[in-house]
């Protein structure tokens, strides 16, 4: 009987067998990598807008308070977008004929609203309420990233469920009160921090992490502080993990 296969075929078939076996795992791994990549989540990708609005300029350099434009952030589920009117409060005085602001003026004349591109968007089927988060002392940047540093605004975090759960499971990691004026209400704490930052007051590591809005592993002492805050503000942690808090 003659050989059907060449000696080398032994190696070949074993390799093939191995590849076939490992292919699904590799594929799964690649997919998961993709879904977490900025390409998919759009995290850190500046978005073009009809008017190249710079948060860095307005919020940081000029020190305009967030609430000045996002008026309903403390009152409502919706943070609120500045109306053309709001912009014109200043821009009817300054930069009155800057070409960049042409769309704004046009909108004001015609009454046709400006269409901003959505940068931060909660995924579908999720009910998010700005006011309660702010009132509980969650900093804007905790979700939105270092807005004060953004020229064209980009998405600060992935807004994936697992990411939300970080805080909903362990709020103590993220809550804080300023040493200097701890008398302020949680809500005030939030904006007080940005004021300090804008005035260039030296910040603690924790505070800096809050401004930058990345996950920050707090020291045990900070953690304990956080725990006391959770108790003080009467946050029911287990209830925070209920599905119906966000999905209904």
């Amino acid at each position, binding site marked *: *009987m*003659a*050989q*059907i*296969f*060449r*000696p*080398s*075929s*032994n190696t070949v*078939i*074993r390799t093939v*067998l191995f590849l076939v076996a490992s292919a699904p795992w590799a594929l799964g791994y690649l997919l998961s990598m993709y879904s977490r990549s900025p390409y998919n989540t759009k995290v850190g990708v500046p978005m073009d807008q009809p008017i190249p609005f710079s948060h860095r300029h307005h919020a940081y350099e000029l020190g305009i308070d967030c609430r000045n434009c996002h008026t309903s952030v403390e009152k409502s589920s919706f943070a609120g977008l500045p109306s053309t009117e709001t912009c014109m409060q200043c821009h009817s005085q300054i930069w009155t004929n800057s070409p960049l602001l042409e769309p704004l003026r046009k909108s004001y004349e015609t009454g046709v609203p400006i269409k901003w591109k959505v940068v931060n968007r909660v995924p579908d089927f999720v009910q998010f309420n700005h006011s309660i988060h702010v009132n509980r002392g969650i900093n804007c940047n905790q979700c939105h990233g270092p807005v004060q540093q953004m020229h064209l605004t980009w998405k600060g975090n992935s807004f994936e469920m697992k990411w939300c759960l970080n805080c909903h499971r362990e709020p103590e990691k993220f809550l804080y009160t300023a040493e200097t004026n701890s008398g302020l209400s949680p809500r005030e704490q939030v904006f007080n921090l940005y004021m300090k930052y804008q005035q260039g007051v030296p910040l603690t590591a924790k505070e800096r992490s809050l401004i930058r809005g990345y996950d920050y592993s707090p020291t045990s002492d900070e953690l304990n502080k956080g725990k006391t805050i959770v108790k003080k503000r009467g946050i029911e942690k287990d209830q925070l993990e209920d599905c119906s808090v966000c999905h209904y």
Partner: protein
Amino acid sequence: MEAKKGPYLYGLIAEFNNEHEVVEAAKKVKSAGYTKTDAFSPFPMHAIDHALGIWDPRIKWFIFCGGLFGCIFGFSMQSYISAIDYPLNVGGRPMISWPQFIPVTFECTILGAALTAVFGMMALNGLPQLYHPVFSVPGFERASQDKFFLYIESKDPKFQLEATKKLLEELGPNAVSIVEDMRDDH
């Protein structure tokens, strides 16, 4: 293409007509003190195991370990998921409702064992192995149909081409032939 230097001597092989002959022959070969021997038959023959002294219990242990791993993995996965990673109140059941974890644990056990059984067997048998010297033996295709082969490897300490050949021929085979290996790395 590697430059062929071979063929190398691989061993001697004798063809027999039926199971009785080959078993008898095997006994003789064993008593002649040959150890690196093997037989080829179209169906499993238990007699030959004794004749050639083939005994390999490893596979059973592999399978046991595979099953054990599956079992532990199955249960711990369920417990971790439903008690530690995301504990949910499901119909007022406790977080670790072990009776309801049994089926999946069981299936994992079986799967673990079964996979090791198959792939363990293949590994120990060195399969897949598409090329093997014996395939070049004339008439070897009958080994998977109705003929029986007895084989002595050249690596056997007592192996001397002439003597061994003689021995085999005395066993009354249809034919005795030399097995040659084409591989250089042999």
